[in-house]
């Protein structure tokens, strides 16, 4: 059954030769297996008792138990890490998206001096090694804390500031592409009707760009939720996020692999579910922003 996708793009409707169909079948099966292997290990091992994950690996679990899902909350303070990650990633996402919307609107709708310098600089910061500004940023945060009393090092605030700049360049880039695809006539008409530029942005451009904004939000949340390097340096016991906290199951002398798998699954659910629900928007946003 040909879908709309099939009519819009793709190779000729001419029947593909057998060699191609078989290659496709084999290649896609292998790739699917590669992708699914850790997912299967994660799910099946999270339901095994400890002695089963400590001995030889078994494809088919001998007995199933949900005990690991109960124990994960006591072995490490997972709930606290979870809340920290939610606060940090949520705040970073909201701030990053709002700032990116303003910046992308300026670039998309106005001509001004330094526009090119801005876009190139912002994009190139994305390329620099995190390790390069980790050490100075660590020192800057420590020194700001010593001299002004504003605790950025070890606090959620410092992490939020850091993470929101991580997703900012790509978000701005993607939203510029998205805003460019919205006809200027729309916001110009609104301004003729007496809206200021900002009102035109929020009343006309933002509603028309919802798919792009959703895509950018998903991206920003995933970036903040998964970051490890800065989380490992910039947090303390009270503000630790999942990225660091999850290693509590695996780096001690006793390795609770079943709990590590259960916890991995639990912390993945919010992002994977969100991503899979909204992936349509993300692909559309990428198409509008990236492929130019």
């Amino acid at each position, binding site marked *: 059954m040909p879908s709309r996708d*099939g009519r*819009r*793009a*793709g*190779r*000729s409707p*001419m029947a593909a030769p057998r060699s191609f169909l078989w290659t496709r079948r084999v290649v*896609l099966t292998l790739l*699917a297996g590669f*992708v699914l292997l*850790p997912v299967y*290990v994660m799910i099946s091992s999270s339901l095994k008792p400890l002695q089963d*994950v*400590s*001995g*030889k*690996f078994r494809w088919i679990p001998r007995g199933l138990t949900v005990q690991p899902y109960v124990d994960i909350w006591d072995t490490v303070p997972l709930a606290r890490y979870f809340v920290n990650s939610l606060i940090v990633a949520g705040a970073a996402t909201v701030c990053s998206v709002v700032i*990116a919307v303003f*910046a992308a609107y*300026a670039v998309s709708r*106005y001509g*001004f001096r330094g*526009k090119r310098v*801005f876009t190139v600089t*912002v994009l190139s910061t994305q*390329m*620099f*090694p*995190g*390790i*390069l*500004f980790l*050490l*100075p940023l660590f020192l*800057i945060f*420590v*020194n700001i804390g010593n001299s002004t009393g504003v605790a950025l090092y070890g606090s959620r605030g410092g992490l939020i500031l*850091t993470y929101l*700049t991580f997703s900012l360049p790509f978000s701005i880039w993607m939203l510029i592409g998205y805003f460019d695809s919205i006809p200027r006539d729309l916001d110009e008409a609104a301004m*003729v009707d007496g*809206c200021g*530029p*900002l009102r035109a942005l929020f009343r006309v451009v933002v509603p028309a760009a919802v798919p792009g904004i959703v895509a950018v939000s998903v991206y920003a949340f995933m970036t903040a939720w*998964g970051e*490890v*390097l800065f989380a*490992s*340096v910039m947090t303390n016991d009270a503000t630790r996020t*999942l990225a660091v906290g*999850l*290693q509590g*199951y695996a780096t001690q002398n006793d390795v609770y*692999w079943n709990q590590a798998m259960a916890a991995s699954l639990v912390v993945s659910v919010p992002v*994977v579910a969100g*991503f*899979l629900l909204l992936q349509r928007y993300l692909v559309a946003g*990428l*198409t509008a922003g*990236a*492929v130019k």
Partner: protein
Amino acid sequence: MTATVTTDPGTGKQARGTTRGSGGARRGIPRIPDRIRRGGLPYLLLLPAVLLELLIHLIPMVVGIVMSFRQLTQFFIGNWGAAPWTGLENYEIAVDFDAPIGEALLHSFFVTCVFTFFAVGLAWLFGVTAAIMLQESFRGRGFLRTLFLVPYALPVYAAVITWAFMFQRDNGLVNHVLHDQLGITDQPSFWLIGDNSIYALIVVSVWKGWPFAFLMLMAALQNIPRELYEAAAIDGAGVWQQIRRITMPSLRPVNQVLVLVLFLWTFNDFNTPYVLFGKAAPAGADLISIHIYQSSFVTWNFGTGSAMSVLLLLFLLVVTAVYLFLTSRGRKGSHA
């Protein structure tokens, strides 16, 4: 934020109707000609983004370069301005390849190059293959497309911890398959320590990285006009020829950016080795980011660590410039 709101009503006659209460605020600020104020709005909109980029990326980068010329040990962490200047000493230590520190850095650099070559190559290959195979619609295509994006959606640490479990010597899946079931190895191998660790690192990195290549290439494939394929089919070109003659050349501009982005991300990767190996990365998989992190935070010698970071940045800049020069020239050549 407040600044943008108060400026807004003053931007011009059209804005008069925006807010009822704007009259008072308008009288409060000095009158600036509308022309200039309108010109200022884009800068105002960019201000938060610029400030944050300055605070988190650009200023730290400058500070990092300054730090690399100082003897910055743990005694000066709280007051790094007091650390003594040492000129190029940190750089001399970093590139003295006969001494242990320089030798280790050089080794780490080579390991990173080998790792990046295979990880990027395989991630791209998997991505382009999957994108082309899913170009035409068939039953199950939507499902596979979603499935292939799962590694991209999973948080790095959750995925890598699972791989770390699979690579365990005694209770992992990999040795169970290779040793117990297939009998390929005489002994169960160590994957996370020793020389094998680089294979483990490449496998995990490819698993995590290829869906991004797939996503970008899939988006690019949707922009190839269908008429090209129809014309080729009329001329008698088969599927394989269409892929070679139409699909691959059309992907070239996307590939140019994609390979560069994958290279930079993979070369700088910290998360994967850090979660896979824990604090002690084996020498065989001592990636450059991990190496700099360790030499800075384990020895608390931030000066040398900064010098290494600056050298890494210079290397990446040179590679990027050469790459862009070569690929753009190649593209121009093919048009001529």
